[in-house]
């Protein structure tokens, strides 16, 4: 990326949420991320690794009893202790979000047109007629045919893919400079998924938005992102350019994830798996959260929680230097 302007920065963010009748459970354990203008940052991880919550922190969408610590700066404004009013202002002008399940995120008793123009009329103070024209144009931009007819339809009349386009259009209408996309294509079939991804990429390029793209699909993230962050148990364990991450992962977890992908040249063989099962941030004890599943773990891994430090051209949270690890593999 030539434009290195940081539009959103999370600095060592710790988040814990109240559980019924129990103490707060940690969800994020020191997440540090930067989103730069005009880039797509892929955020990958297993379910429960904290990737959706990271996006919710960025959009200020947390339950009232959430405990949040650390630093958060969005579009040059410190938002850690921002009021509802400040968040509202930021969301209506700079930060948009699209969600995994569009059907659940659109009021089903309102028409698509109502949904699309509501923010324009209420917040941008446009007239309904001009807002409807803008909405139709926005639908056209995201590849929806016959937009005028769609505006009169209700969410239940549209397919999931079409509804996700409506969701994207509604976000783009507010012209955000930061777009948080929380698994926008997970609920869709592969063909629709690739169509939507190209629309997202096209809009991102045309508008120069910064996009946080959350997915559990490492290949998809690597294919469309400029940089990719890998999360595990509420921490970013590796952060680097998509290319480097895909070809020369630094963290054992990333390496193991890449190894466990199905590939053409391993057809017919058993897929590699990661031993054990993923742990949540709440289950993480002292030391490295991944150590019990790590092929390279040494004694110190259960004592020292490694910081996110430069490793090659990437950042990685691992005690064992990548080159040293490669040597030890060689010795085996």
């Amino acid at each position, binding site marked *: 990326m030539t434009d290195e302007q940081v539009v959103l920065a999370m600095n060592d963010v710790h988040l814990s949420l109240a559980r019924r009748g129990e103490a707060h459970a940690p969800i994020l354990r020191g997440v540090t991320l930067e989103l730069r203008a005009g880039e797509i940052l892929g955020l990958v991880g297993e379910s429960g690794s904290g990737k959706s919550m990271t996006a919710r922190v960025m959009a200020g969408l947390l339950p*009232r*009893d959430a405990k949040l610590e650390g630093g958060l700066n969005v579009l040059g404004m410190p938002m850690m202790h921002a009021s509802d009013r400040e968040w509202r202002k930021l*969301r209506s002008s700079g930060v948009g979000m699209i969600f995994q*399940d569009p059907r659940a995120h659109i009021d089903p008793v309102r028409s698509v047109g109502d949904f699309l123009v509501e923010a324009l009329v209420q917040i941008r103070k446009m007239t309904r007629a001009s807002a409807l024209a803008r909405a139709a144009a926005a639908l056209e931009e995201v590849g929806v045919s016959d937009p005028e007819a769609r505006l009169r339809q209700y969410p239940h009349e549209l397919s999931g893919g079409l509804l996700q386009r409506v969701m994207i259009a509604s976000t783009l209408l507010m012209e955000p400079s930061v777009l948080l996309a929380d698994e926008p294509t997970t609920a869709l079939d592969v063909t629709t998924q690739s169509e939507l991804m190209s629309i997202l990429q096209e809009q991102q390029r045309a508008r120069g938005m910064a996009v946080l793209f959350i997915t559990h699909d490492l290949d998809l993230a690597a294919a469309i992102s400029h940089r990719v962050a890998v999360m595990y148990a509420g921490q970013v364990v590796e952060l680097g350019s998509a290319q480097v991450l895909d070809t020369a992962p630094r963290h054992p977890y990333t390496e193991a994830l890449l190894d466990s992908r199905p590939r053409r040249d391993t057809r017919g063989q058993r897929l590699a798996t990661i031993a054990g099962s993923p742990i949540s941030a709440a289950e993480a004890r002292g030391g490295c959260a991944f150590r019990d599943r790590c092929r390279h773990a040494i004694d110190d891994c259960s004592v020292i929680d490694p910081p996110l430090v430069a490793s090659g051209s990437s950042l990685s949270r691992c005690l064992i230097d990548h080159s040293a690890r490669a040597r030890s593999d060689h010795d085996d």
Partner: protein
Amino acid sequence: MTRPATVHAAGDIALAQRRRSPLSVGSWIGLTFLAVLAVLGPWLALKDPNAIDLRNILGDPSPQHWLGVDSTGRDILSRLLAGAPVSLLGPLVVVILATIAGSALGIFSAWRGGWIDTFISRILDILFAFPALLLAFLAIALFGTGLQAAVIALAVAYTPYLARLVRSVALRERQLPYVAALEVQGQRQLRIIVAHVIPRLSPFILVQATLSFGYALLDLAALNFLGFGAQPPQADWGSMVADGLPALLTGHPYEAVSASLLIVVSVLIVNSAGEQLADRWSGRDD
């Protein structure tokens, strides 16, 4: 992208369902009957409901007095008709006031959460500990008797029932993703509540209000029966039951029985309409 015809069909069915009335024909007839009684009752009364005729007391039904006359010679049918607005609109006002106050309180409580929610919920719990009639007695003791006092007292007593229900459905609604999506658009909470949440909760609220109407009618009639509500000579069904009670014991049941029957029939009509709404909407998948 071409749309399959089945999508059209599904949309049309949904639309047809929305247009179809959730109430049976019988309920509509019953509710219309009550509405006509409540609005036009006094004008339908052929005789002066307050005209005393002491030469003709406790008369049996006759061509002049279809339902007989009461202990002071007043025409019972005319009094029933003249008392319809008080007897039917009184509980309506109770329910409207309680629904507005209860919904506002319930949604506010659910939306704010935290200690505000706990505080409001505990207050509601305390109010719940007292039967509605007892609260009404307390209010009447403080503010004096009269129809207005009785209506306001019952409205206060009914508010917790509405508030608790609305709070519970609003709590669930608060967690729904579409609310977060609207928040991300930068919408104001008040706007989200008024434009999206209340319309979505309205079936629950309407059902509860309808069912409450039957109880309110009974409670208001009871207050009137006890003489705390409408004051003489204003006719209403509750006090007519009370007035007719001594005559009932001496073999002149017309006043007490006819007024009681009207109360029972009204409650049945409104409650069965409420049950139909509840049946129809409780199956809603959302």
